[in-house]
């Protein structure tokens, strides 16, 4: 039997926190526990990578943060966001998700035009000023480093873009609703190496303004772009530390084994 006790969990000063969880537990179908007492703190304007094998609970954790798992799972514990426990029934999840955006594993643009993809949620929110919307489209696309590639075909279908472009469009779409936090669920796993590197550059640029939490299977990717890394194993958070520490000087045996085994 492996010891699943955490070997090291990094904490931050209260003023630096953007988001934190306390004893977060996730149960699927009332029986299967996928996540055990995860307590993690995320520092603002950093990128945190969540690593671990398939089924380690990292995606489950990520999707619980903006309450996307509510329909399929029971989530106990606390999720603190700006002094508010947002894992409560009285929380307006729609407003929460506008503050905590999400980008998924497979690019999922709407079958609409590029422009419409970005402004859809804004229009649903009641924004109708055409000039303002145009400016947001441009700025979102620039922030996602996609503007130069698509500025002449904003009214063409988003499905005509390449996979990498689609994923950056999804980031632009998420940015357009002005989130503070961006959750990324293996955003590069469906992309080729060139698209991946473009995507990583985009994320690095966004770090100055956004707090990003990213699930990844790719150790190089985690080391290339993240400031902090949390290692998940069988539903437990084993170790959480700065990326440099966790990769070069892991405290726990399981962490070390996993990183040695997956790097390369």
């Amino acid at each position: 039997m492996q010891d699943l006790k955490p070997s090291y969990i990094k904490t931050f000063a209260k003023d630096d926190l953007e988001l934190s969880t306390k004893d977060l537990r996730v149960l699927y179908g009332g029986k299967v526990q996928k996540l055990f007492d995860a307590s993690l703190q995320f520092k603002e304007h950093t990128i945190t990578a969540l690593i671990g094998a398939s089924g380690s609970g990292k995606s489950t954790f990520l999707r619980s943060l903006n309450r996307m798992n509510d329909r399929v799972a029971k989530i106990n514990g606390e999720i603190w966001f700006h002094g508010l426990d947002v894992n409560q029934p009285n929380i307006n999840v729609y407003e929460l998700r506008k503050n905590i955006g999400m980008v998924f594993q497979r690019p999922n643009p709407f079958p609409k035009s590029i422009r419409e993809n970005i402004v859809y949620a804004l229009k649903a929110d009641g924004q109708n000023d055409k000039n303002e919307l145009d400016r947001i489209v441009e700025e979102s696309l620039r922030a996602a480093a996609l503007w130069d590639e698509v500025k002449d075909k904003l009214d063409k279908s988003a499905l005509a873009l390449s996979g990498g472009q689609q994923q950056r469009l999804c980031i632009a779409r998420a940015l357009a609703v002005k989130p503070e936090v961006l959750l990324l669920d293996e955003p590069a796993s469906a992309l080729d190496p060139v698209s991946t590197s473009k995507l990583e550059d985009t994320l690095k640029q966004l770090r100055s303004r956004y707090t990003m939490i990213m699930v990844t299977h790719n150790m190089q990717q985690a080391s290339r772009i993240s400031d902090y890394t949390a290692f998940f194993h069988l539903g437990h958070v084993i170790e959480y530390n700065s990326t440099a520490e966790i990769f070069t000087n892991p405290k726990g045996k399981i962490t070390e084994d996993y990183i040695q085994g997956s790097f390369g």
Partner: protein
Amino acid sequence: MDAKKRDKLATIIIYILVGIVVLILAGIVGNILISGIPHLSWHFLTSEASSYQAGGGVRDQLFNSLYLLILTTIISLPIALGAAIYLAEYAKDNWITNLIRTTIQILSSLPSIVVGLFGYLLFVVQFGLGFSIISGALALTFFNLPILTSNIEEAIKGVPQEQREAGLALGLSNWKTIRGIVLPAALPGILTGIILSAGRIFGEAAALIYTAGQSGSTINYADWNPLSPTSPLNVMRPAETLAVHIWKVNTEGIIPDATIVSAATSALLVIVVIVFNLGARYLGNKLYRKLTAAK
């Protein structure tokens, strides 16, 4: 007999049975079209039915069939759409949902004559609507609801989960995500489902003989005020459809050319059904391609 011979024999028997069915179908469709199409004249389509002489047409029956089809679709679509959205998006996986699904399955397997008689009891007798288009349309709605609901549910479920997540993650409500993203993506499937169910409505007779009635009334095609008693649009008038007409002339057999009228009407019905089927497939494909087009 060894295994190889048996294998061969089985293959031969299967081919023979398939051949017989293909021949039967060819016979049926061929017979309907060959004996009916020669009598499908412009005169037949545009003149009134005759009650005891030869040479009558099906003008009013054709209009009634189309009118009932449109009314039924207008009434059943919102209900079926709502029910399908509930089942595909909101229903939890529990015993209540199971019970609801069983209920819908019961409705879909009820004999249409029973549905028709219920319509007769409720609308014609209880609500005093009499034999009328509105009674018929409501009975057809009952008959149509389960199949339309499950067709639409299938179409909605065919939309990838990623699309819903994309909408929800942007802070849209479930409802807005469904209406603005899921339903447009499911549109080809929904339209195909509507057209296929339209084919069924068009040919249904058992649910109508005691609701819309078995005889027509005088219709004045110059009068399009729905409230006027002789207007084609009046929903309170009794109306005989094409399918009911076939049944009527064959069981009462007063007109001397019943066989010719039935053959021509049958051909008309079958052609419409084929057009509906092909139309559903064509439109479905075309819309699908348009929605996913890389342009």
